[in-house]
């Protein structure tokens, strides 16, 4: 049977010659036993295929559009049939348009995959791939519908306000409508007049309403009105309370980075691998070694990032005022791939390529391999634009955006006030306005009159610092936001790499990460719970005021400069410290400069909250 089995394997994988196929036919016709073996073998190969395909979801994280999954393919066929049976020439009252931030999706019209289509028509089907997202705007309304990743929907009626959600999730914020939007799932049907909600079909139908009301019908008879702050699923059909969080993805300034490693496969620019970090930074430019984020030579608890190579994927929506052809230049230490609007562009020997841009958002993606480079500060990767006169300039951070629903929600003024555990203006005294406690003063810091800020505290860079309550008493052992205004007379005095701003005394780890370190390292803002750190690629300058904020929330460390998120990184442990908070030093690394408006919140503040501090 070995010969038969090997032939079956060859045939199934398209490796058999015509003669071998004929031989297979001969072998299985020889005896009933051989034929039964053939069927069992097909069964085993099919089982192995099913097992292997199911492994894909665990190993492959992003960037692969699972278009050929059968559920999608069948859905595509269904809509083909649907379109053939229904046609309507009347113009619709409501027009849905695909917004330009939409990514990784396919639109199927009359059985064909089409691109460059803005307006949705009756019968269209949209399939959203892994990591993708489609935003649909209702023309002439402030209404948005988001089709989240792994969703499949089709638009049933002329106005496209009857949507069949075959799988996945729809989130929407709708103005009050003249006729309701109806979203049908496998188990229910939601009628929406105007509200903000999320409706998903991932095995069971779930509805979550964050404002207004949505009527959910299950079958012909069951019907329930779900109100703001409530959720329901069609399984239990009981309304429950559900708080907080964003339903609607927002657009934020920044570039998303994704780092992947692979234990099983050779690292390439194309292979999908295991996600090891994801966060936000302000631009596409990286420098090698200790000058930039994880891409550094110094060994740390996360040193695998530099010891072993990893795939870096950088993504952002680039806002372009009008359609144009631009020359882009990629500089990179190693090979790099550039994609614009999901199309790969080959770079010439100078790393340049001409790219057509559409008006609005254009998705830029850069891939290269990071890690193992020397601590030299040379360009690891950068993306620049060359204008008609040959002038080269970096793509401006202000034009780069990402979308997210995971950003921290805004707190009200009252909520911010109750989360404030330390409020030290440091303008004329050392009293903490949040609790009336006077902080302990070490050395001889003095109040000076700064021409820009008025009265502020000046630290001498040698021995001056402050001591406050213990970190746990200030709420730093959970989610937190720490902010201040700082001015450095001199960075790295005495050639020490660190300028300490906030810290707790070093304590050997007992549980989790034991020491808070918020400082400037080699000019870069740096956040750590010790051996567990995030560093921004921005370099601060001397003799300039900065608003700095450090945020920790659900394992994500984030650094803000002047109210803008400049870097974030995930996978970090909570701080666990019962040491006092020190201001103006880290070990013997004293800060030489001025400081004021120190605030600690025991909750994470939103980007908007932080920019308003």
């Amino acid at each position, binding site marked *: 049977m*070995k010969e038969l*089995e*090997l032939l*079956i*394997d*060859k*045939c*199934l*994988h*398209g*490796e058999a010659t*015509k003669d071998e*196929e004929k031989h*297979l*036919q001969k072998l*299985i*016709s020889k005896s009933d036993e051989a*034929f*039964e073996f*053939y*069927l069992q073998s*097909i*069964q*085993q*190969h*099919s*089982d*192995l*295929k*099913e*097992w*292997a*395909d199911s*492994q*894909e979801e665990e*190993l492959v994280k992003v960037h692969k559009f699972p278009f*050929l999954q*059968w*559920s999608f*393919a*069948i859905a595509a*066929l*269904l809509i*083909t*049939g*649907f379109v053939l*049976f229904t046609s309507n020439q009347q113009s619709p009252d409501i027009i849905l348009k695909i917004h330009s931030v939409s990514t990784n999706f396919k639109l199927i019209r009359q059985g064909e995959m089409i691109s460059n289509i803005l307006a949705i028509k009756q019968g269209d089907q949209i399939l959203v791939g892994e990591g993708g997202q489609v935003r649909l705007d209702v023309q002439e309304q402030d209404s948005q519908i988001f089709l989240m990743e792994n969703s499949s929907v089709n638009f049933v009626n002329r106005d496209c306000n009857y949507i*069949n959600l*075959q799988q996945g999730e729809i989130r929407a914020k709708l103005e009050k409508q003249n006729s309701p939007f109806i979203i049908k799932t*496998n188990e229910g049907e939601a009628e929406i007049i105007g509200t903000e909600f999320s409706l998903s079909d991932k095995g069971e139908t779930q509805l979550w309403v964050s404002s207004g009301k949505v009527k959910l019908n299950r079958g012909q008879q069951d019907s329930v009105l779900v109100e703001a702050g409530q959720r329901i699923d069609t399984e239990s059909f009981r309304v429950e309370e559900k708080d907080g969080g964003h339903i609607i993805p927002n657009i934020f300034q920044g570039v998303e980075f994704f780092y992947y490693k692979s234990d*099983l*496969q050779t690292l390439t620019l194309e292979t999908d691998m295991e996600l090891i970090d994801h966060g936000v930074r302000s631009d596409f430019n990286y420098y090698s070694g200790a000058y930039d984020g994880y891409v550094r030579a110094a060994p740390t608890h996360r040193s695998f990032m530099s010891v072993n190579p990893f795939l870096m994927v950088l993504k952002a929506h680039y806002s372009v005022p009008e359609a144009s052809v631009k020359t882009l230049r990629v500089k990179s230490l190693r090979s790099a791939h550039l994609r614009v609007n999901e199309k790969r562009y080959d770079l010439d020997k100078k790393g340049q390529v001409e790219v057509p841009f559409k008006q609005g958002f254009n998705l830029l993606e850069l891939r290269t391999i990071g890690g193992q480079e020397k601590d030299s500060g040379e360009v690891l990767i950068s993306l620049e634009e060359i204008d008609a006169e040959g002038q080269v300039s970096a793509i401006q951070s202000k034009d780069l955006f990402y979308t997210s629903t995971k950003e921290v929600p805004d707190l009200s003024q009252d909520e911010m006030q109750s989360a404030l555990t330390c409020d030290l203006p440091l303008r004329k005294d050392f009293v903490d306005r949040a609790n009336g406690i006077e902080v302990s003063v070490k050395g001889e810091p003095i109040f000076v009159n700064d021409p820009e800020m008025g009265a502020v505290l000046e630290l001498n860079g040698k021995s001056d610092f402050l001591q406050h309550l213990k970190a746990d008493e200030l709420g730093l052992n959970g989610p937190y936001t720490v902010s201040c205004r700082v001015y450095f007379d001199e960075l790295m005095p005495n050639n020490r790499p660190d300028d300490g701003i906030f810290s707790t005394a070093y304590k050997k780890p007992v549980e989790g990460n034991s020491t808070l370190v918020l400082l400037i390292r080699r000019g870069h803002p740096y956040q750590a719970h010790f051996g567990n750190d995030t560093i921004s690629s921005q370099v601060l300058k001397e003799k300039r005021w900065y608003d700095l904020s450090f945020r920790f929330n659900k394992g994500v460390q984030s650094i803000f400069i002047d109210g803008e998120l400049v870097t974030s990184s995930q996978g970090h442990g909570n701080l666990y410290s019962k040491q006092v908070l020190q201001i103006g030093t880290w070990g013997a690394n004293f800060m030489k400069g001025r400081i004021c408006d120190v605030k600690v919140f025991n909750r994470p503040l939103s980007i908007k909250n932080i920019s308003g501090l």
Partner: protein
Amino acid sequence: MKDNTEFIRQFAPAQHHLHMYIRSLVPNFSDADDLLQEVAATAWTKFESFDPQKAEFKSWLFGIARNKALHSKRRFLRTQNLLNEVQMINAEQFFLNDSSINSDERQDALSECINNLSDEQKKLLLGRYRDKKKSYELADLFKRSAEQVRIQLFRLRKVLKVCVVEKISI
């Protein structure tokens, strides 16, 4: 007109066995995938006329697949005459009798058995079945000949077959 969801509800549980049956008629993963898609499209358009009083849905699907494999002029020509009609009917019976419970049980056992393999062996199986790599591509990756790769896969399937049978019969 019958509901989309009704079709999907009936089609989904039958899909795995239909796929296996089609692979027995057209033993080539890629062609079988195409044929499955054609069968699904035809089944959808004819779903209106399907009468559950006269036939089981799964059996009805198998009939469509058999006809497609026999009469499709565009494709599958290389392998469409692999099985004679009696063999086709026997294959149909074989896969119709394979219940979902059986195949789920087999799949669970297979996963457990694969867990006992080395990383290298798992990688080989994934390369072949998930990444659809030819034996010469795997040969490059694993630094051996294509023939050695095919033999190693054969041995792995043999080990897994015994393991699965043992687990199911416990």
